[in-house]
């Protein structure tokens, strides 16, 4: 199942601020035309009791995400991870990232390819 390359993205969405740096970093890296891109930021506003709500953002790797394989070959992080303003994205081997995912709440591990 992990045979392709076994790499993924670990997102700590407690700290994703919805700054869209990842999305535009990807657009710049691959010169995507409008409407296309390897990562999209999703906004989730969950209403809570007592007129409160939790405002969350989540970077979602799309069908166009290659985990920046060409950058990885040069020893570079994916463009989205490199520029993440909140430093809440991590690229690595899925097995290693999976170790980290239980260490705190509000984490998600993407294995896009």
């Amino acid at each position, binding site marked *: 199942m992990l045979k392709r390359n076994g790499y993924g993205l670990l997102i700590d969405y407690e700290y994703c601020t919805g*700054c869209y740096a990842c999305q*535009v970093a990807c657009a*710049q*890296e691959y010169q995507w035309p409008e409407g296309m891109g390897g990562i999209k930021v999703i906004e989730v506003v969950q209403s809570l009791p007592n007129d409160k709500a939790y405002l969350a953002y989540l970077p979602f790797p799309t069908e166009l995400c290659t985990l920046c394989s060409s950058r990885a070959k040069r020893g570079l992080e994916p463009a989205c991870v490199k520029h993440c*303003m*909140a430093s809440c994205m991590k690229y690595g081997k899925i097995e290693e990232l999976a170790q980290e995912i239980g260490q705190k709440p509000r984490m998600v591990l993407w294995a896009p390819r």
Partner: protein
Amino acid sequence: MAFSKEKLKIVRTTTWSAGPGCHGGCGVLAYIGDGKLVKIEGDPDHPWNQGRLCARCLAITQYVYHPDRLTHPLKRVGQRGEGKWQKISWDEAFDLIEEKLGKIREKFGPESVVFAMGTGRDIGPWICLLAYAYGSPNVMFALSGLACYSPRIAAVETVQGDYCVLDAAQWLPQRYNDPKYKIPECIIIWGYNIPASCPDNVFGHWIIDLMKKGTKIIAIDPRLSWFASRAEKWLRLQPGTDGALAMGFLNVIINEGLYDRDFVQKWTNATHLVRSGTGKLLRESELVKGGSPANFVVWDTKRSHPVVWDSQNVKYKLPDVKPAFEGKFNVSLADGTTVSAKTVWTVFCEEINRYPVKRVSEITWVPEKDIVEAARLYAKSKPASIHWGVPIDMTPAITPTVQAIAALWCITGNLDVPGGNVISRYAFDAVAYALPGAKGVIRLDSEEADKKRIGADRYGPLNKFIWRAHTDLALEQIFTEKPYPIKGIWIQSCNPVAGIGLDPEKWVKAIKKLDFVVAVDLFMTPTTQLADVVLPAASFLEKDSLRNWWIPLQSINKAISVGECKPDIEINFELAKRFDPTLRWNNIYELFDEVIKPSGMTFKELQEKGWAFPPEGHPSAPYHRFERGLLRPDRKPGFQTPSGKIELYSSLREEWGLEPIAHYEEPPFTPISQPELCQKYPLILSTGRRSPVYFHSEHRNIPWLREIEPDPVIEIHPDTAKSLHIGDGEWVWVENWLGRCKLKAKVTPVVPRWMAMATHGWWFPEKPGQEPSLFGVWESNVNQLIPMGFQGKDGLGAPIKHLLCRLYKVNGREG
């Protein structure tokens, strides 16, 4: 600075707009191939952003090579606003401007030309260079009440002589790892939304770094901001009531004894006496014949007698004084009378006690329990810091509000301590131009000429801290021509018709009334459409320049050229030389060298280094500088205020005839101050919701950014939307007594039921530029609902965050 890698040249430089639209500071690597920018990345070695970069900067290739980029000077050939232009050469443009502005100067005097600037570009010093060379004192930041940043700086300096900001270890090259640094236990985020902005020249996401290291957040915001949703305490206040909330915090902290009494006694003017009858500070000149009015008086408990505080020497005139902290005393004056006087602390506490938590809760709509708990959390956290946003400026009573907030960090002992609010001075004290706190290298030499500066005769802060023309008065003066006519305007990095201008229709009329209008910009905007000459400016990648705000000192290094675009500094320098042949610099590099001279480096040396931090012991390096005598020019411990102390009772405000102590004033357009208007316009309208992809009126033409936020939105609570039959994504009219605009409803619980939050700065670069359209600016510019002329008593602040409105569906039932 530059090296080769895979055929691409990398230029290491510093961001500052034009381009990303910000106050700069991020280190970037610009990848250049065949002389063109291929890509930009955050510089991993730079201590400021540590490799990170925002969406707007990452879209910079689409910005610099945009097909609509202005690349040649243009001269108007049709009527103003008709959109008919002719390309001209730079020589023709400079000759034309020299001739036209020269004639105005000859006939009406140099003050009859206003030099208008916006924000987020390094043009501050360079527009002053040009205006002062021309001879005009009227450099104008084109926002009503100058309501962005400089009022906060002026107000903080009124209290403590130097500005201060959140300490995220930005002064230390090793940042969070420096052993001197402490992580704040708690930060109050006061009216500031993270994903979009970096106010106070603080990289916004530093706060995320600190949260990961354990910092707790108190969020003060009517909106459920990102911080609010993660805060230990979230106080949803009615916009504009920040001053009352701060007074409520002070009430809790003082009455529960959570303040640092030793600090207050030693470093503030708490012990100075205030006369009961006049309510004014008692001065040495009243106490003894020939005494100085600059010296103040305390009651010495040891001698049971008044003793003089010598402001100039920052010490008492007698040894071993034990000044009374609280109380009322009878003092015999030089004229033989006896008056009663109280200490500043007693008078301050009397004012604070007018704000019991119950009353503050009624004003702010924040539950009493939350006010008390937040105040305790802040006061008990050591260190604790306050980071605020522009809503603090955007209210007419900005100064009394800031006096209250500044008192919070002062009396809790959080000033200039690691992890607190740290004094922020320009790196190496290298100051380019007249800003609050420093007069700089570029200055208007003639005091006579400065007397003609619009508003200088009326507003105290404009003669002490802010060396600008007063915007609201200048706009009026264009119409009244009193006391002298305004005949021309130079508009640089400034878009009053679509962005910075309130009541934009008035700005259009004003600009059209003038004899000669020059605009300097990167793209055509609704404002440039009204100019006679439009000059194409360079982005930050196309220029050499400086950044010293606050720390480190950085060079901006030219990486590319685009068309015939010129950097603002080069445009202004050429014209400054023409208007003032005695200008003392031969080229821009001599000017840069002089500006950064205090650093001991030349501009070239700085470029080699990229950035530089002032050394330990320098007045622009932290911490505890008031104790070490690093703040005052005489190197004595204390502050750069008239008394040398933090002034809980402001002697400057007293001098200006204004209330000297922190307090709350109800803003002009709230349900309380306007009960009748509120009947017709029942919703609070707050404006200026930030977007991570736009900077004010910029970037709507950048495809990668526009696709993220394609339309101007207004946030409406689901219950409110339901009652008005408005669905998510529907267009609505937002209307009040001044006008209306059309925005797209974003139905979301992040706003309260009683408030709608609008985005600002909207125009449509894809729509026709000529009048009447002016790029569709009249459709969605929310500033049509905000008046000019409601600045505070000291000229500062404007009601931008708290107006009233009603909403109804476009094409629906009208009203």
